[in-house]
């Protein structure tokens, strides 16, 4: 009977496991080889004195962790992250939501406006950072921003080279805002299109005024799940900031101590000329733990994953 039952199995399901591994296997292997093995190796390195080597022999216990936590440069980089996310998360959220609401209401050339606002998301962070640095916000009289200031008789500003006032934040935040607002606009647009028009009709029948009242009592509550996801993504992206900071502020001799986010700091510790792979790995592990704690804490605070979501 067993043999008969096997014979009746439809062709294709016989080797389901084989085909599963044919398609998933290469990617799983890549994930293990290029993500999990380096991750485990990095944790291993963090307990060793590993200058210019990935096969260290001198075990130092938690020394790398304690020196990283006592290092002002590392703690300053966390402060830089906090300041950066305090700027970038709310501004991107508000701007992308505003763009989504605007594009959603537009009746003419909707596709055109969506494309226009989304296109910067396709631009490389490196290219955008260099345009900002060399053309718009350079510190000489023919930079675009300084030319505009010159029309009003104002002095030239060295945007990326002054710390008092810290104009470099304006450059850093605007480049990322330009690059990512369009992407989050698309997420909000998807959320907006899921809201049933009957809710707005019912609100109109009940006398709700269009505009702020409808936005506050209908649109924003209905966008809650999207808003939570967008906020989480924005915070994680802020933690991963590297490209625009590095390309805006580094030069051939290094990187200034201000506006040095954690990844830039760890890059210079582990992969720059320092090549202190043990210390850098300890920093990477600490940073991963911080990101995990912040993300889980944020998700619990927003109630992400609860049944009503």
């Amino acid at each position, binding site marked *: 009977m067993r043999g008969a039952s096997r014979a009746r199995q439809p062709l294709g399901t016989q080797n389901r496991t084989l085909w599963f591994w*044919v398609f998933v296997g*290469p990617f799983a292997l890549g994930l293990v080889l290029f993500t999990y093995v380096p991750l485990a190796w990095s944790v291993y390195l963090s307990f060793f004195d590993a*200058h*210019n*080597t*990935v096969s260290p022999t001198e075990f130092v216990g938690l020394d790398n962790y304690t020196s990283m936590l006592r290092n002002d*440069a590392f703690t300053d980089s966390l402060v830089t992250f906090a300041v950066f996310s305090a700027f970038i998360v709310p501004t991107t959220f508000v701007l992308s939501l505003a763009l989504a609401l605007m594009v959603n209401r537009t009746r003419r050339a909707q596709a055109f406006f969506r494309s226009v606002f989304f296109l910067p998301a396709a631009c490389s962070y490196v290219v955008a950072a260099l345009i900002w640095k*060399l053309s718009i*916000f*350079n*510190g*000489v*009289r023919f*930079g675009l921003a300084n030319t505009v200031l010159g029309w009003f008789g104002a002095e030239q*500003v*060295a*945007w*990326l*080279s*002054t*710390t*008092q006032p810290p104009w470099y934040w304006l450059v850093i935040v605007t480049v990322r805002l330009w690059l990512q607002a369009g992407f989050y606009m698309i997420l909000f647009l998807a959320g907006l299109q899921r809201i049933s028009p009957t809710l707005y009709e019912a609100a109109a029948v009940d006398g709700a005024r269009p505009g702020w009242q409808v936005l506050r009592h209908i649109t924003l509550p209905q966008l809650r799940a999207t808003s939570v996801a967008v906020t989480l993504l924005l915070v994680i992206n802020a933690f991963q900031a590297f490209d625009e900071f590095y390309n805006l502020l580094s*030069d*051939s*001799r*290094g990187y*200034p*101590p*201000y506006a040095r986010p954690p990844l830039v700091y760890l890059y*210079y510790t582990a*992969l*720059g*000329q*320092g*090549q*202190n792979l043990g210390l850098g790995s300890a920093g990477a592990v600490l940073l991963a733990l911080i990101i995990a704690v912040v993300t889980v804490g944020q998700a619990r605070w927003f109630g992400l994953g609860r049944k009503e979501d």
Partner: protein
Amino acid sequence: MTISRRTLLATGAALGLFTACGSITGRGGGGSGGDGPRLAQWYHQYGEAGTEQAVKRYAAAYEKADVAVQWRPGNYDEQTAAALLTDSGPDVFEVNGPSLDQIQGGQVVDLTDLFEGVRDDFNPAVLAPKTYDGRIWAVPQVVDMQLLYYRRSLLDDAGVRPPRSLDELVDAAKALTTKDVKGLFLGNDGGAGALGITPLYAAGLSCVTKDGEVGFDDPAAARALGKLRQLYADKSLLLGAPADWSDPSAFTQELTAMQWCGLWALPAVKKELGDDFGVLALPADGPGGRPALPVGAYGAAVSARSDHKKEAKDFLKWLWIDKEEYQEDFALSYGFHIPARLSLAKKADKLKEGPAADAVRFSTEYGYAEPLLWTPASRTAYQDALSRIIKSGANAESELKTVVREVRAELARVKKKS
């Protein structure tokens, strides 16, 4: 024969895997075609036109090995540091060092025997940082130096003489600053990176003494660095130039009257400004000070992971010790450098007159080379402090106290390994 979708998919996947696995060695095509083993030789990307073709020509002329030159743009020092950890790195490579950690970590091959009979002909200032424990770890290719360019006509118009002290430099930069032209360009970071430790030497100090101790635990260091802050506070410094200090554009485009730059820029400056410029070392500061400028050299080294270490050493000796005509060509035909061999530097006509002759004289009278014990960790701690002093007005004495502590710890670490 019909090919099913599954056969096609399987063949494609297999081909993809073979392609992905094949030849990822960093020793790709483009070899010179000489007999013997294939050697990968790495250079950082030079700005001067013709240099790449020149080094490929030298490699092609070598007959005992098939030398494949890789011309690598981007962050070269980081690329080589990472490549030296793997088996796919270069056999012979240009290095801005090697660093003490690279030597102590056994990443480069001892080249002392190549210098037999010619050691005294190499400029001692640039050979010293390639020497550790009496052994030599790289062959200096050319001598590079940094110096202060000034525009004669702008100084004359402002009634300013070429500065002979740091105080005079501060005053001159202020006097030369107008609405459109700044007095001085030390790099977009205000000098923390480009000047680095040079002000310590101008104050008669050093970063690390010959005995391997901290060389700037002295009030004169804070005094000298405070003058860089003064330049910034006076708004005499050009900041935010599209091209940084290593490019002479800001100077030749009249964005600044004086600029800290390299000897390599001299032909470009001469082409734009003719004789309307002069060069200086960073002026002295205080009674114990003397003018100072950094000299250094990219060196050619052999990777300890190379499968052909002997052949790589033979090639390196042929190119950077025996073939004097190539060394002269490399130093003087493209950018502008001083040959690392004293005998070649002496007979180079291009170095015998004008600002070039001044530069050569300064390099021997005032030049200092960054010692091996000044490790990247010490350099970063010092540069961060200098940046805070210049841009944020941080107290120089307390900042330097912290750096002295960090450098002492770093010196103790590297000494423990030796």
